[in-house]
């Protein structure tokens, strides 16, 4: 049951062969069993069961809200969820409870989807391993797979591999079958990276397609909400639900009129695939190169056009990214001063002292380093 695709599950729920409550309980049990992965910061057990109950009532009446009605999902902990703790895996927001839902979260809830919990991540989405969290790192579910443990002779408790980041918790949740889809965020690969490491599908939508209202920002001009699922078709279903202009986010654009649904019979002969030559960079592991070549050959054999392309500025991209990212980070983190919400230090000798200690106590090194760099880049002199 837990490894069904969204489409299969949706059908089963409508037919009545699976009950939303039973499904919810199964997922919750699995979450408890996989606690060592540390994928979740908050598990919303009571709420999930309540939502599952409501979904069941609707489905029995034959009136589902949509294709996701009754289906468990998880949300990265940098999306605001009303009355549910939202921490961004930081001490700064460890007890912060937002008073509103992020637009993309609301859209899923409006579909009747069932919220399992808030997933673990790198603090404030700064990282690519989900190792820098105030709540401990996320472990890749594949650390416990037979193939890995046999291969390395690893002791399950001490030897594990990273899940990637910064949306590691979301990826681990979907990969470990505790939810069917998850929301992540992607600025410089933070949804795609963990999905690749956890062996699932990630979609980074084009900037402006999905609303960022309620997504606690890293880099406003690059962030997007990301979609993590187990199949590409599932990702297309979720994209269709989430895309669209939002009045509350001035950087969104209207959704394109063409449907997102993947056709059943997809002819690969119709696509052209570009392989950027600059991506064959020094340091690329043999294993990765081998897989890359294997897939390129697969497409070619199936009749697709596979061509080499050039992205000549690739070597500069990471530096540009860092400068822009850190500048915006320094700006976005300025609001965390302990005054209106979040952690506040006990030092109250002066406002400045309070700000300084609050920010020192609340942020980890990664965040503090990026703020300092960002301010350096923004300074005029």
């Amino acid at each position, binding site marked *: 049951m837990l490894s069904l695709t969204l489409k299969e599950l949706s059908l089963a729920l409508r037919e009545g062969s699976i009950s939303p409550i039973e499904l919810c309980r199964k997922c919750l049990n699995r979450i408890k069993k996989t606690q060592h992965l540390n994928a979740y910061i908050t598990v919303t057990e009571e709420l999930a069961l309540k939502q599952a109950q409501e979904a069941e009532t609707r489905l029995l009446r034959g009136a589902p809200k949509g294709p996701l009605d009754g289906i468990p999902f998880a949300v990265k902990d940098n*999306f*605001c969820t009303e009355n549910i703790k939202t921490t*961004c895996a930081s001490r700064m*927001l460890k007890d*912060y409870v*937002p*008073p*509103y839902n*992020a637009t993309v979260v609301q859209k899923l809830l409006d579909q009747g989807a069932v919220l399992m919990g808030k997933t673990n991540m790198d603090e404030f989405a700064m990282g690519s391993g989900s190792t820098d969290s105030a709540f401990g790192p996320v472990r890749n579910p594949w650390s416990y797979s037979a193939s890995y443990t046999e291969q390395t002779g690893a002791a399950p408790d001490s030897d594990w591999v990273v899940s990637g980041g910064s949306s590691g918790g979301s990826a681990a949740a979907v990969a470990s079958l505790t939810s069917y889809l998850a929301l992540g965020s992607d600025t410089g690969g933070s949804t795609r990276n963990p999905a690749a490491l956890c062996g699932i599908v990630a979609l980074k939508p084009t900037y402006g397609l999905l609303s*960022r*209202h*309620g*997504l*606690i*920002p890293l*880099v*406003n*001009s690059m962030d997007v909400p990301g979609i993590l699922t187990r199949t590409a078709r599932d990702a297309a279903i979720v994209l269709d639900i989430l895309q669209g202009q939002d*009045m*509350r*986010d*001035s*950087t969104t654009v209207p959704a394109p009129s063409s449907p997102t649904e993947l056709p059943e019979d997809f002819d690969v002969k119709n696509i052209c695939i570009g392989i950027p030559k600059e991506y064959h960079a020094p340091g690329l592991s043999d294993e990765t190169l081998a897989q890359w070549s294997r897939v390129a050959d697969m497409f070619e054999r199936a009749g697709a056009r596979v061509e080499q392309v050039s992205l000549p500025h690739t070597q500069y991209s990471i530096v540009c990214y860092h400068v822009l990212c850190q*500048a*915006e980070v*320094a*700006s976005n983190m*300025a*609001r*965390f*001063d302990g*005054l*209106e*919400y979040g952690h506040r230090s006990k030092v109250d000798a002066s*406002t*400045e002292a309070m*700000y300084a200690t609050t920010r020192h106590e609340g942020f980890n090194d990664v965040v503090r380093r990026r703020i300092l760099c960002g*301010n350096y880049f*923004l*300074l*005029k*002199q």
Partner: protein
Amino acid sequence: MAASSVAASELLYNMKKQILILHPKASCLIRRISTRSSRHYSQPQPRAKSAPEQLVGVVGLEIHAQIHSNTKLFSGSSVRFSAPPNSLVSFFDASLPGTLPVLNRRCVEAAVMTGLALNCTINRKSLFDRKHYFYADLPAGYQITQQRRPIAVDGMLTYSLLGGKKRNQVMRKNVHIKQIQLEQDSGKSLHDDLRSQTLIDLNRAGVGLMELVMEPDMSCGEEAAAAVRELQLILQALGTCQGNMSEGQLRVDANVSVHRPDEPLGIRTEVKNINSVRYLARAIDYEIRRQIDVLQRGGRVQNETRAYDSKTGETVPMRDKEGLQDYRFMPEPNLPPLIVYEDNTSLPTGTDACQAVVVQKIREGLPELPSVKRDRLVQTYGILPEHSFTLVNEDGLVEYFEAVLKSTKKEPRKVIGWVTNSLLGHLKQHDMSPGLSSCPRRAAGTPGNGTHLLFGCQAGVPGNVEVIRQDGLTDHPRAGFGTC
């Protein structure tokens, strides 16, 4: 001297505007040769006299006008004066993480309207930026403003002063408006020294402001005060700002320096904390005198921020603003460029005209501005310019004057003297405004023929005004009655 250079400056300014309208791609540079009123660069002039020239003041103004709108610049919370603390604060105003700014269209229209009334060029495309500094009344740690490219630039405010020996000569002067930009207001901090704490009220945080920068074309407190007064009248006529300085709807900071004419500008100080037009004049004049004093004693004027103390009439250094701030400006990534359209034909296909800000439409909807009104009164009623000046200067006086004329059918030139002297004097004595009295009365006799007009109205209540033929003027206003 003053009149001709003002006229010439205005002529050149209008020429430049016309050229740019007819040939938008042309670059137009009009050089101004240094004269007493030109401050932009100096050219030594042959001096006939041997005595050194006096130090004179140079005054520029930075004005923050609170936009008169229902909701704030980037959020939907209400704009109201004197509401319970922190009762008008949306999630965005409190800088809750994940919230985003959404631009208020009325604020853009207000800025365009104001720009047009001040003869500015409206930038078709303008941009928003973040200005960073840490302060308790700035929840996000930055203010959203328009530093790189504001909505309106390069305007002109014409104001008048009553000068001459009898202070009845109307002298027209100009001050250049460098730019008008949209920005957020900050919250308010109240310092509680007793408990050693600061209380923050965010009701004002996020309210829309128009920042108007006036070039240093003024030379003394009186000029600055007159310019600000004219601006108040314009903003009130437009309805874009209520212009009340004591309520903080209009905040004026003065940049003051002194120099000898034809020499480079001196070091300037910024004077803040000025709560009325009258204090503005006093503060500036005090500061000019202070700086002249410092220089004459061989000292140097420091580039600093000073606060005006209305009790002592002096400016004192402000402790808060030590050192130069680097605001780390950055484009505001959550707001795309602001585009306003010249007319309906320039709208992109498929855009609803109601959704866009169209300059032509706003231009057509501009109300009668004070300067036009003054000229109209002079033309229509044949009254003197200085009387017209007084009429327009007082809230409600024009309406009262016109109503008196209508019901008494007396000659305007005979009524005007009474209105601007006796009536106004009496109202001011009792601290009332002409706007409170509604209906005028029939005068039994002509004012000025030994007949005194009596009126009474309850302060605060639009009352009835009664005109009684009487020989003497009583002191007590009493609740009137009568036919209207």
